[in-house]
Every structure is written in structure tokens, then in C-alpha cells.
């Protein structure tokens, strides 16, 4: 078979519904081996220049602390089939029921200090809960921003922008390939995908819905999307990394590390073989990297001896790798080509504030 022929065959078969204006609703079930060629067929998002709005029944949400993606602006939606609901989980990501979709749309403005001016849609990542597990599908927006095309191979795109701090930079922005979805969303290598952002603690915040502000857990419960949840005040809450009112610098840094690192540096993550674990539940100092020697960092160590040297960010590999941009040294390994300067400053503050232990 010619290269690409298989992909083309899939695309043709998947077309046929949804494009164009009018009433539609997300498919309750879908052949997971045949992702639609056009995003519009899923009837989840309605594009307007530089932004997407949720279709009726699709719920927008936000997170206390998000993954950093080269300063992209992200819009998150969830859709749960009518009559179905997710089951409360205080610790792991809340798993939406079969038939659900989670979609995240990435957009950039030329100057992120004024992100609504001249903003462009780049990609929308779709997670679909098929009967046999979650699938990840990348879609890349057309130049006209009226629809997005299924793009399983991903791409690296050069995007110039001014950061929120006023620095002019050019990102080698990665639209991940379908295989790369699994790098972060896999339970264990070779297994299916799972959701990452939808932990109770990360969802536990207010959102400015069209009909007014409401706590997301309360709203999901009220709409019947979520069953068994306690009142938001009784639910765990992750610090918002950039809001000092929500936690100490240490709490906010740990929140940032959890969201940006623990999908790999967690018990089931791809980087579990390093023995470095960065979830907020980790209390063992060695597992958290304190005076821990790297295993297979290679040049990523930056010539430093320990993952975290308490009190000394300049000697900590963790800080070095957050500040690195070369693929192979930069962490996370994919999804970031720019330095998250503000997040880096927060992690530096956390490391500097750790009681010096004097690693040997």
C-alpha cells in the first residue's frame, strides 16, 4: 500500500456529516478507528475569528493550574452524552463516561500581552472515550479558521510572539502526532489514554459561564455530568500557580510541577523509570528529587549532580531542565519549546526556600 493511502481511506470514510451551519449534536458513538476528517463533524466547537465557542450542551471549563504550552491560550470543553455521568474521584483525574469528548483548542496572538488582538487558532486536540478507552485526535485549523482538519502526523510550526512579560520569541510549536498523545496521556506504555487535567482538585474553581459564575464541580453536579461529588468546599483544591491567594509559593510550585511533570513523573507515567516523582501527593524527599542523582539525564543534567539541591536552584537539574530549550534537555520532553519564565521563577523560589540539606 502506498504511504498515506491508509490515512486517506480513513478520512474519506469518516466524512459526511456536521459541516456547515445548523443544528447538530456530538455523536454519541463513533467508530474510534475512523476519526472524522473535519472537526466540525464532531459538533463540539463553533469557531469565530481567533476563538471557539462551545456548541449547545458542551461545557466549557478551566483549570487552577494548566500545562504550559509555549504561552498558547487554551479553551477547554467537555461533552458527556445525555443521561450519562462521571463518577467522583477525589484523587485521580475524573474519568468521563464512554461517548464523552474533551477538547482543547490552542490559539496564539502576536502579542500575548493583549491576547484578544489578532489571535489565531492553531489546533484543537480531541479526546474521545470509545468503548475500549480514550483516543486522542489532533486537528489543525485551516487558514480561514472555519474548520480544522484531522492531522494524525502532527507538525512543528514556527510561531513568533511577544510573551506576557514583553519578550519577543519564536516558538518551534509542536502540534503533537497521534502517537505523541500517548506520551503524556498513557496510563502505562502501550496502553490506552486517560484524562490528565480533570482532577477534582484542578477543576475545583469558579468559571464565568454565560449565565454567571459558578464553581465547576457544583455545576457539573447540578447538570448531572458528575455523580457523588461533595460540596466544593469539602473537595480538594489545587493551588493556582499564578495566584498567591491560593497557596504558598511551595504549594503553587508543587501544583505547577504536578500538572507539567507528573503525567510522566508519576507512578504510571513514561518517566517512572527515573524514580523522580513530582505529583503533589509525593512526600518522600528522595522521590521528589532532593539530593537525588539523575539516572539517564545525559546532557540534560547540565553538568549538575542532583535533581534538586535544597536551597540552591542554580545547582538543581530540575530548574536547569525547565530553563533549557534544546530538545533532549528541555522538560517536559514535548509540548514546550519556549521557557515558561514565570513558572520557572516560581519553581526557583520553591527550591531556594527548601531547607539546605547539603547534598554530598
Amino acid at each position: 500500500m502506498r504511504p498515506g493511502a491508509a490515512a486517506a481511506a480513513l478520512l474519506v470514510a469518516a466524512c459526511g456529516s456536521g459541516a456547515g451551519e445548523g443544528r447538530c449534536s456530538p455523536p454519541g458513538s463513533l467508530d474510534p478507528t475512523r476519526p472524522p476528517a473535519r472537526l466540525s463533524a464532531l459538533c463540539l466547537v463553533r469557531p469565530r475569528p481567533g476563538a471557539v465557542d462551545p456548541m449547545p450542551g458542551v461545557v466549557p471549563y478551566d483549570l487552577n493550574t494548566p500545562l504550559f504550552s509555549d504561552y498558547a491560550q487554551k479553551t477547554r470543553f467537555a461533552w458527556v452524552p445525555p443521561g450519562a455521568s462521571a463518577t467522583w474521584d477525589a484523587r485521580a483525574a475524573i474519568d468521563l463516561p464512554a461517548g464523552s469528548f474533551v477538547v482543547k483548542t490552542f490559539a496564539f496572538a502576536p502579542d500575548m500581552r493583549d491576547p484578544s488582538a489578532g489571535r489565531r487558532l492553531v489546533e484543537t486536540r480531541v479526546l474521545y472515550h470509545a468503548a475500549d478507552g480514550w483516543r486522542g485526535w489532533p486537528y489543525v485549523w485551516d487558514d480561514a479558521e472555519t474548520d480544522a482538519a484531522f492531522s494524525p502526523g502532527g507538525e512543528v510550526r514556527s510561531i513568533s510572539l511577544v510573551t506576557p512579560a514583553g519578550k519577543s520569541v519564536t516558538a518551534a510549536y509542536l502540534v503533537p502526532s497521534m502517537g505523541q498523545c500517548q506520551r503524556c496521556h498513557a496510563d502505562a506504555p502501550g496502553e490506552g489514554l486517560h484524562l490528565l487535567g480533570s482532577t477534582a482538585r484542578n477543576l475545583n474553581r469558579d468559571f464565568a459561564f454565560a449565565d454567571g459564575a459558578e464553581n465547576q464541580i457544583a455545576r457539573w453536579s447540578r447538570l448531572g455530568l458528575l455523580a457523588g461529588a461533595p460540596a466544593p468546599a469539602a473537595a480538594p483544591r489545587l493551588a493556582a500557580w499564578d495566584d498567591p491567594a491560593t497557596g504558598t509559593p511551595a504549594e503553587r510550585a508543587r501544583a505547577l510541577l504536578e500538572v507539567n511533570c507528573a503525567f510522566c513523573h508519576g507512578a504510571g507515567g513514561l518517566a517512572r523509570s527515573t524514580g523522580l516523582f513530582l505529583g503533589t501527593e509525593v512526600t518522600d524527599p528522595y522521590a521528589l528529587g532532593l539530593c537525588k542523582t539523575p539516572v539517564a539525564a545525559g546532557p540534560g543534567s547540565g553538568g549538575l549532580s542532583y535533581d534538586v539541591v535544597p536551597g540552591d536552584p542554580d545547582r538543581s537539574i530540575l530548574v536547569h531542565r525547565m530553563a533549557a530549550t534544546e530538545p533532549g534537555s528541555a522538560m517536559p520532553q514535548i509540548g514546550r519549546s519556549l521557557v515558561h519564565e514565570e513558572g520557572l521563577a516560581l519553581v526557583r523560589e520553591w527550591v531556594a526556600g527548601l531547607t539546605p540539606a547539603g547534598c554530598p
Partner: protein
Amino acid sequence: MSRALLAIAAAGALAACASGRSSDPCAGAAGTCVAFHSGATEAEIQAAVALAAPGTTFGFGAGTYRFANSIAVTASGVTIQGVGGSETVLDFEGQAAGGEGISATGDDFTLRNIGIRDTAGDGVKVEGSTNVKIQGVRVWWTAADPHGNGGYGIYPVASANVLVEGSFASGATDTGIYVGQSQNVVVRDNEATGNVAGIEIENCWGADVHGNSVHGNTGGILVFDLPGLPQQGGHAVRVFQNAVDRNNTPSFAPAGNIVGSVPAGTGIAVMANHDVEIRDNAVTGNQTAAVAVISFVLLGRPYPAGYVPYPSRVMIADNAFSGNGSSPDVTSDLGALLAAVKSILGTPIPDALWDGIADPAKAGTNPQQICITPGTSFLNLNVPGSGVPPSTSSAGFVCTLPLLPPVVLP
């Protein structure tokens, strides 16, 4: 011909493996094969691999294929093959994204007869896979200054039933062929040169390393166990019939990496593993030491409870040693110590050395059961600082351990 010399002959035969291959990129493929020919774009290759059905073979014809992003293989049963390690080259010089050239996480992954050049990080990393075959693969970096090269060339980790054979790795800032935290491993008939470490077996349970030509690295073959990892307690490792020659390249490992502790001129080093056989190897011209058996304690780094830092039951038997230990690398702590010992001894460093750091719970002359065969010269460094000077007496160390079972791949 001695068995040790056979090792050299076997390594010399490696070059012959390149002949007799088909120019059909789908040659030998069982099941669906998607062929790519020179000129195929990254976009079409990435899309096809991303959509791969289990069991698909991707065959690349002769030519160079350039990539800006790493290739993530997640389906099971995928084979990626070329028509030769030098004829089909995946070129990552312009890589902008991804920590390795190829990353594979599906079971039954095969990579064969293909070259991988100038990756930003590791060449090929296979993680959490059962049944891994890397055959006839070349991984190398072309930069004049190797300090910016990736850490690992061929890098299966946390996997089971791993075969790396007839492959070549050069230029890695950590290790050319590195198998970590895996079970049931065979590394045979490969060539590793110009890396910091040639071949490393780390935290593995059951590994056979044989018939390899390991030369011109900083250290030749390392059998290490490190603390704080999901799989530790490395054991049942057999290193036999390898040619380990002149691994004297000054280290270009980034500081902080464990491999940076390895002195230039190390032939074979065993750290903190138990049940290891070093047998029938030709170990020649390594300037610091031919075979070193050491404890993690020697590195002076912290380790968590539950980790056993001492090597035990290490059999060093019937190797051919010559020209080793003549000029220990004084730029490393261990090498400097050995240089001092050498000047006291007035002879090159003996064939096999043990650091002398024993588990405090054990007693006796040879509490860790480090064994050599007669004719092997020996050095006990007596490092613990008990005031006992280094000793070249082999009394108590000439002994025999039961043979370890061979690794059997399914």
C-alpha cells in the same frame, strides 16, 4: 584459538553482516507493509506511523529521510526497517521537538537495518515493551564536538525480552547501547565506539552480553545497579566473548551523570550487581583497569533504604588480559586513586580489582564472593579507610561460583 580470541574474531565478522540485504524496503515483512521511498515527507511518514494498525511494518528504501519531530510508535507489533544501517538514514539534524529520534512503547517492537543520525536526545528509546528487537541498526552523531550529542544511542528501558544485535552506536554522551531496568536481555555482536560508555546493563535482571566489539569509548562495558529506581537489584548478568579494547577516550559525559564517574581507560566495570560472570573476554589496552568490581558506596553519593550498594558473587574467569592498567586516568577520583596505587605497586594495575567495600553485615576474607580464576592478577583496594593498604594477594579470591543460566529469548 582460545575462546577469548574467538571473541575478537566474532567481532571482526560484524562488518560482513551488511552484505546480502535486499533493496526491497518491505523485504521479510510479515503482514501489512507500508513502503517509503527516498523523497517521502515527514508529514506522510508521521501520519502513517501515527495511524499504524498493530503488526504493521514500515519499510524505508535507501536514502535519507529528515525529521523535525521524534517518531512515536505506540501500536504493538510495529516493525520499522530500512535496507541497511548506512543505506537508509533517518536524519534528525534539524530536530525541533521530542527527546529522542524514535520512541516506541508498544509491545513486539522491531527496528532493523536502519540508521539514525544526529538526534537531539537519545537515538532510539523503547520503554515498557515486551519483545524488543534492535538488529542491524546504526546510531551515530556527526558533530565534531561530541559534548552536545544525545545521551543514549540504543536505549531499551523497563522492557522484557530485549535483543540488541549486529548494531552500531557511536558518539553518545552517556552510553552507546544501554539497557536499563529490563528483564531477559541479550546484547550480542554489536560494535560500540566513541561513546562515553560503550555498553551498559543497568538494573537488569538476566542479561547476556557477548560477541561485542567495544573499543575507543571512555569505558567499555558497565554492569551497574543504581538506587531509587522502580527496578533495582541487578543480577544474573553474563559478559562473555567480547573484545574490549583501548577504551581510553577522555570522558565527555556531562558532570553529574553516574557514567561521568567512570575513569577513561576502564575495560569492564561491575557496580552493585549480584551474580555476574565476566568470562572469556579479550580485554586489552585499557589504561586504567581491565575489570573493576565496585560498590555504589565508592561514589560517595546518597542512596535510599532498601538498596544494596555492594556487588556480590562476581565470577571473573578465563579472560585474556593484556596491556591494561598502565596509565590510570587521574582526572577521575577512582583513576587518581589507582594512579597512586600503581606508583606504590610499581606495576600496572592488576587484571581484576575490587574496591574492598564489603557489606558490614558480612565477615571473612572474601565476604562478597568476588572470584577469579588462577592466572588473573588481582587488586583489593581496601578502600574503606580501615588503614589496611591495597593488596595484590589473591588469597581467598581464587574461587568458583556456579555457572549462571543463559538468557533464553522466546
